[in-house]
């Protein structure tokens, strides 16, 4: 629904307004139909099959709502200044700490010297992971948390999970500033490969938005989805190259790990920032005498298909089911 233009509500001519208050016309119907003649019509029927394009268009027309909802989340988080700051910095720092600890233990057990770039990789990946985990964790309950709104006022319901992703993106932005200050000392390479970083972030955000939308919708119908998601997120860090790199899994393990749609994003970030690698080329690394292929260009396409596919699925899912929302509430 695009808002009607103000011209439709042109002020009444004075003559007409005073006429309608004349006693003789008091109960007579006031025919003011000529004043309003909006051309757009919303048809509400049993089946509403909207194209994906129309859904995206609806999201664009509701960008102000997404913005306001995200601003609400951020404002509330930062109202308690300590909490807000902690959220965007402390959570990733904890992950960095855990990652470093894991690395130190590995070093102690294998005797392979610890490279500072490996710490750099952990720092680099911790913030995106914190973003992803935060977005999914909050996003899964975004529709159920706003049920009073959802059952009273019509707006595209997909704005709710997407607004959560946007508000977490704000934290990621704060985090990236931190990364920018630290990474030069941890072996990041200044190269043209850094241009891949924005694309990786886009893939990550779209994937998070897609999964959030699907999960938020599912959580409405099955309230235990939220708890299952939390458990999966906790385990997820072990199946995603955040605290480690895929090379450490050996040739086959690395390939297997890259099936996780998040893995190409995280490894892409690492390779472009820490190795200065152009992601359009294959990359391999020697690991304990074995050559491990840790990047293939088609990983990009694979992650993109997951990201945009899940977003499309989520948007369609919400659109097809959103009339049930009020009933399930």
């Amino acid at each position: 629904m695009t808002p009607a233009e103000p011209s439709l509500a042109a002020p009444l001519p004075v003559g007409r307004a005073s006429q309608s208050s004349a006693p003789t016309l008091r109960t007579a119907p006031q025919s003011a139909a000529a004043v309003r003649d909006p051309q757009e019509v919303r048809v509400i029927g049993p089946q509403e099959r909207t194209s994906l394009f129309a859904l995206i268009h609806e999201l664009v027309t509701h960008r102000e709502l997404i913005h306001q909802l995200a601003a609400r989340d951020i404002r509330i988080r930062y109202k308690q200044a300590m909490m807000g700051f902690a959220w965007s910095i402390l959570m990733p720092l904890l992950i960095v700490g855990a990652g470093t600890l894991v690395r130190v233990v590995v070093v102690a057990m294998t005797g392979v010297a610890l490279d500072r770039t490996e710490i750099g990789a952990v720092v680099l990946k911790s913030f995106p992971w914190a973003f992803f985990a935060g977005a999914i964790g909050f996003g899964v309950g975004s529709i159920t948390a706003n049920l009073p709104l959802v059952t009273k006022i019509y707006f595209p319901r997909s704005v709710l999970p997407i607004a959560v992703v946007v508000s977490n993106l704000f934290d990621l932005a704060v985090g990236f500033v931190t990364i920018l200050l630290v990474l030069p000392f941890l072996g990041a390479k200044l190269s043209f490969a850094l241009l891949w970083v924005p694309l990786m972030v886009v893939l990550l955000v779209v994937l998070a938005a897609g999964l959030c939308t699907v999960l938020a919708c599912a959580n409405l119908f099955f309230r235990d989805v939220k708890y299952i998601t939390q458990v999966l997120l906790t385990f997820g860090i072990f199946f995603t190259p955040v605290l480690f790199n895929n090379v450490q899994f050996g040739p086959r393990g690395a390939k297997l790990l890259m099936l996780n749609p998040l893995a190409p994003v995280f490894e892409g970030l690492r390779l472009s920032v820490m190795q200065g690698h152009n992601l359009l080329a294959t990359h391999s690394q020697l690991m304990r005498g074995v050559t491990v292929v840790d990047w293939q260009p088609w990983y990009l396409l694979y992650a993109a298909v997951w990201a945009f596919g899940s977003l499309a699925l989520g948007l369609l899912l919400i659109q097809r089911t959103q009339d049930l929302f009020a009933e399930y509430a």
Partner: protein
Amino acid sequence: MTTSSTPAVLVENVAKRFQRGERHDSLRDLIPALLRRAGRRGETNGVATLDRDEFWAVRDLNFQVDFGRALGIIGPNGAGKSTTLKLLTGILRPTQGEIRMRGRVASLIEVSAGFHPDLTGRENVYLQGAVMGMSRREVDSQLDSIVAFSEVEDFIDTPVKRYSSGMNARLGFSIAVHVNPDVLVIDEVLSVGDMSFQKKCVERMLAFKREGVAIVFVSHNMQAIGELCDEAIVIKGNPRFQGAVGEAVTSYLRLSGDDSAGVQGDGITVTGSQLVDPSGQIVEAAAPRQALSLQADMHFSVPLSDLTFCLVVRRATDYLTVYDGNITSQELGLGVIEAGSTVRIRFDHTAHLTRGQYLYTLGVYDQREGRHRIWVVPAAGLRIDEYRTYGGVADLDVETRVETLARV
């Protein structure tokens, strides 16, 4: 595609089916439910079938509202009024039929639903404005007006959790009326705030009407319906009446008391009540000063004496009492009315009333017990048709004469 003759709201053959009872809302319960559904799939092929645990919330809904007109929806609780509004706003989708809404639709349903308690009034105005589809620029330009209308100027930078419920609702209402809609859907929110704010709201609604906004209004406040609406629908699952507001109110009150079985009181059952003219014809509409009689047949299941019969006449649109009179059984010379007997009581009268819709209410008071044994609401409805008065309620039998006292 559309012309100016197309109504703002067009509802055609709309029906909504709901599922009764418990829903599986966890994955844990999903598997058995899926198996059940798979076993049942073959049986349901039509669109309009009803399963054992399903019911129609509304059916056969047909109406239209033109720009600049207001439609009232009245009905008892659970009659499907809110469902109808949710269908109009697109929150629910009809099981059958189609709704066409032209232009921007704003709903005054739970006007502060989008508020966050920790945000200030100002922040919430932007949030709620966005929820209702306003752009940032619109809110910017309307902010002063919104704040002024809500009368919370001094607290606009205070978190709304510190607001009273009235302030909360006033601010929400104020945002909603600044949306600049083409169609406005209102659900019983005019009861917000104190008297003066309510008056302001009704005035704002009337102003919307003058500006050509189409309004659909659900309320239990018959006076508000009467003030705002041009016509009304009575629904109880399906539409029972559609037409002038006064008649709709009568029809609605009739619904609450089921006519066919009679009105059951304590020891007395009114098996039928109607308004008749001197020839015994049932009257629904009359001219002023027509001779009328309200007659009611009462069956007594216990012997009773010392009764007072009460007749109350009210204007349907605002409940203004135009007559409230009693007569005792002693005055009527009645002794004990035996159990099992049926009596017909007649109140002969003349309707000195002006144009409008009126309701007759009948009661029987037990003087010994000190309580009413039965109230029949309404016992009858009456529409007075005349086109000479502008307002008022009493027909004073005015004869206007002009004499020329002096000629120039």
